[in-house]
């Protein structure tokens, strides 16, 4: 279970890696693009806002300029009117008293002119001409001046006198010198000078309905909260939509900065809100048209952009997740199949032919290689099985050889014979040798034994054979003590010695000698069985390992071939038996073994 879980986590981590890389890439890309675009667009919005506000303010100022200009035109019309000039100069001269009637006619003519101007333009509230001679001309007659107010003391009058013929535009105010009428107006006043003497004859006053200006300004759209207001040259408010609030300090405008600033706009912070203040000055009269727009109104659009970017990022993340899941499953599915295949192999199932993995090249290659590997393992296992079988068979043969009945008969015969001859010492020797021989043969069931034990074993064997053959058999064991510690498979020497006795020495009339030698040669162990018997004919020697005579096996020996095969099964083809023989001289059998501790 735990292992399975671990595998799952491992598998998931492929997916999560892909997801991580994907989402990182997407987030970073979208973020960078988003940030750039966001700032770019908000800059554009601000720039547009500035541009838009300036256009609005410019438009307002143009409209107002037009009205003021129009009033100036009207004032010029009257200023240069000869009959007005004439009429005003009359009283001053204080002659023509007789022409009262003519005077009245003149006044009526002028009043009619004023009246016609008034009728042309509804936005003019009133036109007055105040003569120095005490004459007052206006349109219509239904007005009464307030007694307590001295016209000469009023601002517009004084300023007109100072300007000496130039038109003066006042701020917005209540016109206060007429009884029962208090209209809000913007006044244009102008001193009328005598054409000839250039002396002051009086002051012309044109009152423009203030509503014209409030209408121009209040209709302006500068966002939800934005507005336009007007300051005159001195910084007094001509128009403000919340003038009352300003007078009571509930609202304020940064008038000083507006008056002093050179730039056409600036951004200020008021009540925690960023405001764009745009200023346009009307050249002649010095009025400043000020547009106030709230950037927050405009920046809602910017927030929308940011919102949609965040949504885009989340959508991209979602897509990244889906794609990464898909890719990960594409990659992991064949891996999972392969994994299942490996698990089956782990459990010993090497049937790989029915598995078909289709994927990208790498995984397919991997699967193919794995399949090949499995097939190879399968073949090897088959091989091992067969080898094992052969080993068992040869061991069985070797063991059979130990309990060779002939050898036992002969040995027991010899004991009996010696017992009858009352050679007790020999009986004891023979019996104990026989016992030790068999004990070493079994070697507690171990397949591998020390060389020391193998030599011991062959010593007892030779001892038994010596008792039997007596003078006919001589033997000698010459083994390098260094190699005694190495291990070899058992029952290597005994068949060779048996062979040497039965086929080499037994038929010699004088008997023969067997030497057992042992030493280390170039990292290998070399054991030799040397006899001085009849030898082996060379053509027979060539085939001694291939084609072993069956009769020989039958005759008792386990057979040289079996020994050779066993060595090769255990230690490989580098090891085994070699023969040196000469007819009539004797035979040497070399046993090559690895030096294994």
């Amino acid at each position: 279970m735990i292992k399975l879980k671990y595998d799952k986590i491992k598998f998931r981590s492929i997916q999560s890696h892909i997801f991580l890389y994907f989402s990182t890439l997407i987030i970073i890309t979208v973020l960078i693009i988003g940030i750039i675009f966001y700032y770019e667009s908000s800059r554009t919005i601000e720039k547009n806002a500035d541009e838009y506000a300036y256009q609005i303010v410019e438009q307002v100022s143009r409209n107002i300029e037009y009205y003021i200009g129009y009033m100036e035109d009207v004032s010029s019309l009257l200023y240069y009117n000869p009959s007005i000039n004439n009429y005003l100069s009359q009283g001053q001269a204080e002659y023509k008293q007789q022409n009262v009637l003519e005077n009245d006619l003149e006044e009526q003519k002028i009043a009619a002119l004023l009246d016609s101007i008034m009728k042309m333009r509804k936005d003019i509230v009133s036109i007055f001409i105040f003569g120095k001679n005490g004459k007052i001309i206006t349109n219509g007659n239904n007005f009464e001046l307030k007694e307590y107010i001295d016209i000469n003391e009023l601002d517009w009058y004084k300023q007109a006198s100072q300007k000496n013929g130039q038109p003066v535009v006042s701020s917005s105010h209540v016109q206060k010198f007429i009884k029962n009428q208090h209209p809000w107006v913007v006044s244009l006043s102008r001193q009328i000078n005598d054409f000839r003497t250039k002396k002051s004859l009086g002051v012309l006053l044109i009152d423009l309905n203030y509503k014209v200006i409030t209408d121009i300004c209040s209709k302006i759209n500068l966002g939800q909260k934005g507005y336009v207001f007007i300051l005159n040259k001195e910084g007094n408010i001509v128009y403000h939509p919340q003038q009352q609030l300003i007078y009571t300090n509930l609202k304020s405008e940064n008038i000083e900065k507006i008056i002093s600033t050179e730039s056409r706009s600036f951004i200020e912070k008021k009540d925690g809100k960023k405001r764009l203040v745009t200023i346009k000055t009307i050249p002649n009269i010095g009025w400043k048209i000020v547009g106030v727009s709230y950037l927050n109104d405009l920046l809602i659009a910017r927030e929308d952009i940011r919102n949609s970017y965040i949504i885009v990022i989340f959508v991209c993340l979602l897509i990244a997740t889906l794609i990464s899941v898909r890719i990960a499953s594409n990659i992991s599915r064949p891996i999972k199949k392969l994994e299942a295949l490996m698990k089956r192999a782990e459990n010993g199932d090497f049937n790989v032919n029915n598995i078909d993995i289709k994927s990208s090249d790498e995984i397919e290659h991997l699967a193919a290689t794995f399949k090949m590997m499995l097939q190879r393992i399968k073949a090897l296992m088959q091989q091992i099985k067969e080898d094992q079988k052969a080993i068992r068979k040869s061991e069985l043969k070797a063991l059979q050889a130990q309990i060779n009945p002939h050898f036992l008969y002969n040995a027991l015969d010899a004991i009996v014979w010696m017992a009858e001859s009352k050679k007790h010492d020999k009986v004891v020797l023979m019996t104990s040798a026989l016992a030790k021989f068999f004990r070493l043969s079994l070697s507690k069931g171990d397949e591998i034994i020390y060389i020391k034990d193998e030599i011991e074993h062959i010593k007892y064997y030779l001892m038994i054979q010596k008792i039997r053959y007596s003078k006919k058999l001589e033997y000698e064991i010459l083994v390098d003590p260094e190699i005694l510690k190495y291990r070899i498979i058992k029952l290597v020497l005994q068949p060779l010695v048996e062979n040497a006795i039965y086929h080499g020495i037994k038929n010699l009339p004088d008997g023969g000698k067997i030497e057992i030698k042992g030493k280390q040669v170039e990292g290998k162990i070399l054991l030799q069985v040397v006899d001085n018997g009849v030898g082996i004919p060379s053509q027979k020697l060539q085939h001694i390992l291939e084609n072993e005579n069956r009769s020989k096996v039958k005759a008792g020996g386990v057979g040289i071939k079996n020994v050779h095969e066993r060595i090769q099964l255990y230690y490989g083809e580098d090891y085994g038996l070699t023969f040196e023989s000469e007819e009539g001289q004797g035979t040497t059998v070399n046993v090559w073994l690895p030096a294994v501790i």
Partner: protein
Amino acid sequence: MKENKFTLVLVVFIIAVLIVLLVYQSFSVLKNGSNERKSIYVIVKSTEANFDFWESVRMGAEAAAKEFNGELIYTGSQSEADLQEQIEILDQAIEQKPDAIVLAAVDFKALVPMAEKAAKRNIPLITIDSNIDSDVVKSFIATDNISASQAAGHTMAELINKKGKVAIVSYVQGVATAIEREKGFINAISEYPNIEVIGIEHSNGDPQEAYRITKKIIQQHPDIAGIFGANQRSSEGVGRAIKEMKKNGKIKVVAFDSSEEQIQYIEGDIIQAVIVQKPFNMGYLGVKIALQAARGKQVKERIDTGFAIITKDNMYSPENQKLLFPFIER
């Protein structure tokens, strides 16, 4: 493996930043949401078109509604003293479930049950000009009538050289503002030992009645030195009587609230000083505060909108002409 961890942390961090941004966003959307249009009922004492005071209130209310995104429903009884009608109007307003109600109460006590009904329905109630006797009122926005009428009393004392008889022509008996103005004036006068308040009369907000009362007072006390007109309509009646009896200059008049008629009396030396309230500010602040309350913000309990003392000399200053002549269209 370390590299992966770093990437993971990075991604988590970026996602966290995004979430914070989104939360902030939705928070500001919430803030904007709280900035959405709210309906505000403004119920005043009189909807008569030439009642300058209430017309100014209306202008202020409209200015605030535009600035703070409110939907204004401006209503009120036709006549100033009609309690029953105002109760009905308030009841109807509550039924409409507005987001807030701004009320100029015609009675201190009688409107309390209706105000509590509004409070029960979670409609914030703001009073302007005249309060009611209840603490369900979130905010009361008005002239501090006591200090304004105290100023009137001191002005009066200066005008009559701190000696003589004075009378008060008030408007509706029992109305909170009237009580306060009478009290403030008497308080101030009581500082001058040589001035005697000979009586308080009520005109019920009718100029004709005030005119009759004034004539009666002058007839009974020919030596009277000054008269205090406690509201616009009462002062108009006082002015008419003084003008008719040609007592201008001899009997000093201090008035409360202005109108075109009173301006004539100021210029004609019939009324010497006028205490002018700031009705535009009342309407403006009333709606502004009501919208704040409707958006669940904490509001100030009491806001003083201030006053100005206007005489013949200063009446055409830029500030005062805006107060005296609030309407540019006439």
